[in-house]
């Protein structure tokens, strides 16, 4: 039970949504709602939950189509819908690792990337594919809202870097990315339906270079050019240097840092073999 009165708004356009955010102090955008409702139930929301703006009725946030040399996925799409679309095998593999089928029917793509949980595994394939992200941010003062499409890697550093009230509408993925050989591995403490101790995703791109990203090992997802270069050029020999680059790993009630490091080594080696 959420023991609070909450304003619920369901705009039809992105502009209405952003305008609503400007009008309602403390409002949050809502798609699947799993994180907002569970946090509110525990009384653990980052700030008082006063208003939610449901973006599921906004057509451009539920888009699922090819436009030019990329395909576009709406931020409000639920994970099951994306999996059923079969557009991007690596993305599907990653999404299938998240929660269970029933919960994936609720979880949204944008929510997984922009949520407070530190895993954000859905971002891994998008970072590897060098996708872009389309957002709408409130304008300054009386100015109209600002629409911008940016390279995801430029606005994702540990988390999605958004301005206050900035609404994520969709992601655009280059059409050739799904063609690349890929690898996905995921390890949990016990049950497969759990947060990852380590998730790795990797591709061999059109230039035969390795692109590598991981989640779970740190309190944030991670991809870096330095790691990609080391793995592309030295293969498994780069492991000590890569682990050095990755720095201290998480140590929590699910697993020790030691075990995560061991898993990570095993998983990177396996990914490289798979892509060799």
């Amino acid at each position, binding site marked *: *039970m*959420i*023991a*609070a009165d909450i304003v619920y708004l369901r705009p039809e356009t992105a502009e209405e949504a952003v305008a609503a955010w400007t009008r309602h102090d403390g409002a949050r955008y809502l798609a699947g709602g799993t994180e907002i409702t*569970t946090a509110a139930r*525990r*009384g653990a929301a980052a700030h008082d939950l006063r208003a939610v703006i449901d973006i599921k009725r906004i057509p451009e946030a539920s888009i699922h189509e090819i436009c030019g040399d990329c395909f576009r996925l709406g931020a409000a799409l639920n994970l099951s819908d994306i999996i059923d679309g079969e557009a991007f095998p690596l993305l599907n593999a990653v999404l299938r690792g998240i929660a*269970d089928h029933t919960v994936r029917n609720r979880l949204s793509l944008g929510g997984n990337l922009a949520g407070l949980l530190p895993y954000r595994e859905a971002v891994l394939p998008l970072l590897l594919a060098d996708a872009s992200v389309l957002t709408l941010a409130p304008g300054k003062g009386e100015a109209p809202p600002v629409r911008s499409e940016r390279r995801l890697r430029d606005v994702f550093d540990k988390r999605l870097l958004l301005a206050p009230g900035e609404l994520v509408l969709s992601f655009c993925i280059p059409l050739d990315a799904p063609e690349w050989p890929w690898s996905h591995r995921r*390890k949990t*403490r*016990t*049950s*497969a*339906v*759990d947060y990852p101790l380590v998730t790795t995703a990797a591709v061999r791109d059109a230039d035969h270079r390795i692109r590598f990203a991981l989640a779970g090992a740190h309190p944030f997802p991670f991809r870096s050019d330095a790691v990609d270069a080391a793995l592309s050029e030295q293969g498994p020999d780069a492991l000590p240097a890569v682990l050095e680059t990755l720095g201290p790993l998480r140590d*929590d*009630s*699910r*697993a*020790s840092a030691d*075990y995560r490091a*061991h*898993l990570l080594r*095993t998983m990177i080696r396996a990914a490289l073999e798979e892509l060799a």
Partner: protein
Amino acid sequence: MTRPSHLGTSPVRTDAPAKVTGTLRYTDDLVRPGTLHAAILASPHAHAQIQSIHTAAAAAAPGVRAVFTGADWPGILIGLYLGDKPPLARGNVRHHGEPVAVVVADDEAAARHALPLLHVAYAPLPALGSPREALAPGAPVLHPGMNAYARIPDILPEPGTNIANRTRIRKGDTEQAFAGADAVVEGEFSFPPGDHVALEPRVVIAEYGPDGRLEIDSSTQSPFEVRNLLARALGLPERRITVRAAPIGGGFGGKAGIMNEPLAALLAMRFPGRPVRLANTREADMLSSPGRPGLQARVRLAARADGTLLGAEIEFLFDSGGYADYAVNVSRAAAISCTGPYNIPNVHADSLCVYTNHPFATAFRGFGHIELSYATERAMDLLADRLRMDPADLRAKNLIRQGDLTPTGAPMDDNTGDLPACLAKVRERLRWDSAPHRRVMPDGTIRAKGISCFWKAPAIPTFTDAGAVLFFAEDGSATLSTGVIEIGQGAHDGLRMLIAEALKTDLDRVRVTRRVDTDLSPHDWATAASRSLFMAGRAALDAVADALDQIKQTAAVPLACAPENLDVAGGRVFLRDEPSRFLPLEKVVLGYVYPNGNSIGGPVIGRGRYITPDLSSIDPETGAGKPWLEWTLGAEGVEVEINPADGAIRVLTAACTMDVGKVVHPALARGQVVGAMGMGIGYALTEGFVFDARQTVRNGSLRDYKIQRYGEDPDYIVDFVETPQADGPFGLRGLGEQGIVGMPGCLAQAVSLAIGRPVTELPMTPECIWRKSREAAP
């Protein structure tokens, strides 16, 4: 007139339509108009002094009627066997999640909304994280007032320490046995406390009437025990208390002991005429209400070179958490059965229930036996390794048989099940003797098998009772009323089959009342200890016999014969020698009416009763006595697959064979055993609380506490052996819990074999297996 027996058939359970359509009414579906709602504030600390609680802001919140703290009921202590628990913490909190204050409001939202407005100042105290820490010299004594606590005579606390109970077993001469042994092994084994994770969180609705009567609706396994507990805790006589129990969504022992009834009753007494509802959130169900105990065990075994067991020295330290509840009797039950199902002539055992600063513990499926079995089975494996014997052969050599003496010195009687047959069947199912126990597969994974034996006897009062009343409707059908709660186990369906069998009638002419009400239902100890079909079954058969006598008495007059010449079958009462002279039951069960309107007889009401015969308490110094009623014996085995690279584990096959005397409903029986085995796999591989250094629980929600899921199941193979239990209805004995008991033992054996290192701790998560496999070989 011969008819096929109902026993051994698997009719669809009577509650299936309601359960699969979501229309079964559980306790929380009974909310009445005018109900007030309570919400609990739980301690974030495992051990702390409460310095102050500021309630004014919460009390002033919209919709709030009142806020209460421990100071509101300064004299009240609650406990089934040992009265050690205040309804809300007083002075100190003793575990993470302990209720410290409660808000009562017009609706649940208002009550929960007010919780953050309560301000509690705590001074944290050093927290005890294990029984051994709690027994160490200088450890803080968590219950300094223990001396004054009310208790039953069978529980032996040691005031001035953290020992809530010590049960001793002294059988034979262990010193001599160990001195003369060819092999002695010793091991320490442990696991943390955890939760039952029943699907339905606990809920209670209490109302105190202007007539001074207390009415309770609760998701309880033991309404009569609740009435008794409330009477003692609140000083109200039983005649002023009614407890009603709807079917519950899983109990597993967690709904047998202290729950929220006393607190809800106290709240209701502050608002006469208003029902007060106290419903646990999942998190409160895991931390504020009791879970299952943890264990630290030390087992030494002495044997001859050929594997014959000579002696055992056993120490069980049960982690009871902040309060004792049923855990005191769990520790006692574990002592009574401490050796597992093996004939050991010399036994020295101390089984202790120890207070720590963990969430408090109560009964859990297996009641002491899953815990003791894990420890003794691990020790048996150490012995098999030492003697280089096949672990199944070592067990086979020492299996307990009729005439052998149990740890309490009483002999296994004529009803002893055929454990050798159970073990042989599991060996066959696992291809134990025809395929290697450990194989490295082409992909590098390792497959390994493990095997264990188990026993379980109900740990019950010597005067455990069951009542049954059988009455009839106009259509001649029979209704059975008992005190047995439907907790998912299907006992009502089993009872229905027993009645139909005894009345020689169709199943659809018998029903069992679903709700239990202490004002309407005959007395019954509790729905626990795998005893319902046995004891309530005995009472039900007694009620059938009584009803048949009355039917024959009435029918004999119009049929112009002696009652003893009549028989009842197929919905008729008829002359045994001349079945064409009969009356349909509907013309008899409410009295017989002559054509002219004269009538005789009156409603038939069958009365049945049962009480455990010949049980005794055990001697406090030696444990000698006969506290057990019947033993269910069995064997279990598994094959697991382990990836040595990261410790990942999968259970491929799990087999169980147990001697249940008589299988009444094969599908339900299999369901109980498979459910128990699955729970045992979770117990051994994934479950258990994770604590930080201050003993707060890190995984107190289902986000983090992982139980088995559908899809993670192995291939289950369940077989039954039927050696009749002479005093059981139609020869049956209990089977509800037993399938869990041997699982941790055989899983630990399989994992140990796979990695070549003896596992000593649960749960065996992949990380633990990986870490263990990197230790130096023994």
